[in-house]
C-alpha cells in the first residue's frame, strides 16, 4: 500500500498530536482510514506484495534454554556442529544434498527480474543450497546459475515443459502459498513484458490471473496419480515436494504424505507474495508458528518424521528463526522476503526513490507495479539493470552464512552436534499464545495450554 507523501510540516509530529489531546482510534487507525478512502476513490481492492504485516505470534515469542548444569554445551569454535541435510531420499534416486538447511523459496521470473533470479541462484549456489522457480517457468539464467534448482509445478502450468522438468533437481507441486492459501498467482499488466508474456503464452500487457486449482487433478487421490506421473516422466530420479499454504496443516501434511510426497513444504501466513489482495494476505491462513507442530505431529503419527522432510517458510528472518523452526521439528526452512532484502530490497540508500513512489524504505511493498528502484520486483530493463547479480548473489550468500552460523551458535549452546538435533525441549514460550501454538511450555512453568 502506498502511504502517500509523508507530512513534512514542522511540528506535525506524534508529540504535537499528543500535546493537543488528539487520540487515534485503535479501530479506525490511519492505515484503515486511508484504505477506506483509497477503496472509495478507486473502486478496486488493494493489491500488494510481501506477507502479513499485522503482529502475530511468531518465533520472537520463543527462547532457548541453553545448556547449564544438566546439559552439556559444545565449544563454540572447536567442536563441530553440522548443518547439512538430505531432502527427498524416500522415493527419488537422486535426492538433494544441501550444505545448509535454508533454501530459497519459489519466486517467479516475471514477478522478479532476470537479474534478481540470477542473483538468487548465485547466492544459493555459493553456500550449497537450492533455489526455486515460480509461476512463470524456468529461465536459462536461473538454471545456469543455480547448482540445485527446484522446479515448481503450479496450477497455471505457465512455461511447463518436460525438458525443464528433466533439467530440474527436484519438483515442487504447489497447492498453495502462505500469503494466499486458496488463491492463484497474479501479475499485473505492467510486468507482462514481451519475454514474460512469451514464457507464459499470454498477450503482452494484460492483467494475468493464475488459476488456483490444478487443471487436471482434484483432491488427494488424484494427487497420488499425478505425482506418479511426474515420477514416471522423470524416471523416478527427482524428489517430489508438495507445498501447501498453512491452514488445515495437520490434515494437509497427512494427505501429502499419503499422496507420495518426498518433502512437504508448509508456508505460513507471513510468507510473502509478489501481488495479492491485501485482504487475502492479512486474513487467510495461520501463522507459521501454529503450523509447524501440526505438520510434525502428522509426520510423526505416520512414522515418517525425518523420512519425509519438512520445509517451513513464512517470516523466517535469521538464524534464531531457523534454529527455532528446526527445534520444533522442521528439517529446513525456506526464505523469500529475507532473501530479497539481502539482495537490496527496501534499502535505505534508495529512500528518495521510494519517496517518489509514495512509499519509504522499509515500507515498500508495491511489487505488482514493477517500479522497484532496487531492480528486483520489476521487468523494466533500466530498473532491473540496477541490480548487479554477482554482488547481489554475494550479499545473499553472506546473509545465508550468517543465518547458518547463528543457528549453529544456538545449537552448540544447547549441546547439539547438528542443527537438526535441536528439539522442542530446548524451547520455552514468552506468551500464552505462542506456548499454545508451538506446544512448548510458557517460560518458567510446565504449562502448555491445551495439554
Amino acid at each position, binding site marked *: 500500500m502506498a502511504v502517500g507523501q509523508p507530512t513534512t510540516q514542522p511540528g506535525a509530529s506524534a508529540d504535537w498530536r499528543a500535546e493537543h489531546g488528539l487520540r487515534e482510534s485503535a479501530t479506525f487507525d490511519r492505515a484503515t482510514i486511508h484504505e477506506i478512502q483509497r477503496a472509495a476513490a*478507486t*473502486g*478496486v481492492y488493494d493489491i500488494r506484495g510481501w506477507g502479513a504485516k499485522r503482529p502475530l505470534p511468531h518465533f520472537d515469542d520463543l527462547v532457548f534454554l541453553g545448556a547449564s548444569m544438566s546439559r552439556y554445551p559444545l565449544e563454540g569454535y572447536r567442536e563441530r556442529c553440522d548443518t547439512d541435510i538430505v531432502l527427498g531420499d524416500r522415493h527419488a534416486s537422486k535426492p538433494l544434498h544441501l550444505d545448509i538447511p535454508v533454501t530459497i523459496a519459489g519466486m517467479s521470473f516475471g514477478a522478479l527480474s532476470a537479474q534478481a533470479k540470477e542473483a538468487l541462484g548465485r547466492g544459493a549456489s555459493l553456500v550449497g543450497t537450492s533455489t526455486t522457480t515460480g509461476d512463470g517457468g524456468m529461465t536459462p539464467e536461473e538454471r545456469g546459475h543455480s547448482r540445485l534448482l527446484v522446479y515448481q509445478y503450479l496450477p*497455471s*502450468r505457465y512455461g*511447463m*515443459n*518436460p*525438458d525443464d*522438468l528433466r533439467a530440474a533437481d527436484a519438483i515442487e507441486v504447489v497447492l498453495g502459498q502462505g500469503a494466499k492459501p486458496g488463491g492463484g498467482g497474479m501479475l*499485473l*499488466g505492467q510486468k507482462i513484458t514481451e519475454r514474460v508474456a512469451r514464457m*507464459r*503464452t*499470454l*498477450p503482452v500487457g*494484460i*492483467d494475468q*490471473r493464475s*488459476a488456483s486449482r490444478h*487443471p*487436471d*487433478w482434484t483432491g488427494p487421490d*488424484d494427487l497420488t*496419480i*499425478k505425482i*506418479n*506421473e511426474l515420477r*514416471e*516422466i*522423470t*524416471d*523416478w530420479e527427482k524428489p517430489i515436494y508438495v507445498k501447501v499454504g498453512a491452514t488445515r496443516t495437520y490434515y494437509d501434511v497427512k494427505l501429502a504424505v499419503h499422496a507420495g510426497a518426498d518433502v512437504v513444504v508448509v508456508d505460513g501466513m507471513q510468507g510473502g507474495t509478489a501481488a495479492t489482495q491485501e485482504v487475502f494476505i492479512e486474513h487467510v491462513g495461520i501463522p507459521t508458528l501454529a503450523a509447524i507442530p501440526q505438520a510434525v505431529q502428522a509426520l510423526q503419527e505416520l512414522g515418517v518424521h525425518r523420512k519425509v522432510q519438512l520445509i517451513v517458510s513464512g517470516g523466517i528472518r535469521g538464524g534464531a528463526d531457523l534454529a527455532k523452526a528446526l527445534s520444533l521439528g522442521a528439517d529446513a526452512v525456506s526464505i523469500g522476503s529475507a532473501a530479497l532484502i539481502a539482495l537490496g530490497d527496501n534499502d535505505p540508500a534508495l529512500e528518495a526513490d521510494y519517496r517518489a513512489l509514495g512509499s519509504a524504505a522499509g515500507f515498500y511493498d508495491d511489487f505488482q507495479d514493477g517500479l522497484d528502484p532496487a531492480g528486483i520486483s520489476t521487468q523494466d530493463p533500466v530498473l532491473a539493470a540496477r541490480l548487479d547479480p554477482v554482488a547481489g548473489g554475494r550479499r545473499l550468500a553472506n546473509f545465508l552464512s550468517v543465518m547458518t552460523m547463528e543457528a549453529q551458535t544456538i545449537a552448540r549452546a544447547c549441546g547439539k552436534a547438528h542443527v537438526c538435533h535441536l528439539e522442542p525441549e530446548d524451547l520455552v514460550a514468552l506468551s500464552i499464545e505462542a506456548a499454545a501454538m508451538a506446544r512448548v511450555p510458557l517460560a518458567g512453568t510446565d504449562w502448555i495450554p491445551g495439554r
Partner: protein
Amino acid sequence: MDTLTPRTADAVELDLSGVGLRETNRLLHHPEELTGTTVTISHPQGAHSVAAGLDAPLVITVAGHVGYYAAGMNQQATITVDGNCGPGVAENMMSGRVRVRGNASQSAGATAHGGLLIIDGDAGARCGISMKGVDIVVGGNVGHSSAFMAQAGRLVVRGDAGDGFGDSIYEARLYVRGRVASLGADCVAKDMGPDQLTELAGLLEAAGYDDDPAEYTRYGSARRLYHFHTDNANAY
C-alpha cells in the same frame, strides 16, 4: 526379455501386464534399447501414465483402455489409444500426435503447448483447459468448462459443447459444429472469414474428418476482462 517380443524387424510389443509400467516407460524413454520404432503396448488394463514423458518419434499403439495421464507431456511421439482414456490424456503435450479411438475423460489436453490431440469419441469436462498452443479435435461432444482459460491453440468440437464453454479464454480459437450449452465469461461467437474456414479445414483434414467447415461457429475472447475494472466485477 521374453515379454519384449519383436513382431517384425521394426515392430515391438510391450505387454504392460508382464513388463510393468515402470519398465515400459523406461524403455520408451530410451528408444535406443528398443528393437524398433513401432510399438504396441498390450494389456494396459486401465493403467495410469502409460507412455508418459516420451521424447522420440516412436509410433505407439496402446491396445486397450488406459487411466489418467496417458501420453502425458508427449514430445514427438505418435500415440494411438485403441480404447477409452481417463483424465488428462496428453496433458501438457509439447509436440507429436495423440489419437484416442474411444472417449476421453476430463481435462483432455490440459495445458498442452503443441502437437495434435484427436479424440474420436466424446471428451468430458475441461477439455483443453488452460491449453497453450495445442490443436485438439474432438469427434463427439465436450463437457462443461471446456477451453477454460484457454490461452492459445485451436479446439475443434464436431458435436456439442457443455456449459461455460471458453470461460476466461485468452487467445485460443474455438470451433464448434453443434450447440453450445452456454458460453463462459468473456467468450463470444465470432465471424468465420476465409482465413478461419481455411484454418478449420486444415485441422479437420489433419484429424481425418471431411466435414464442411461452413457448418461450424467460431468462438474466441471478447478481450473485455484482460484488465481489472471494478465495473466488470460481476462478470467473473
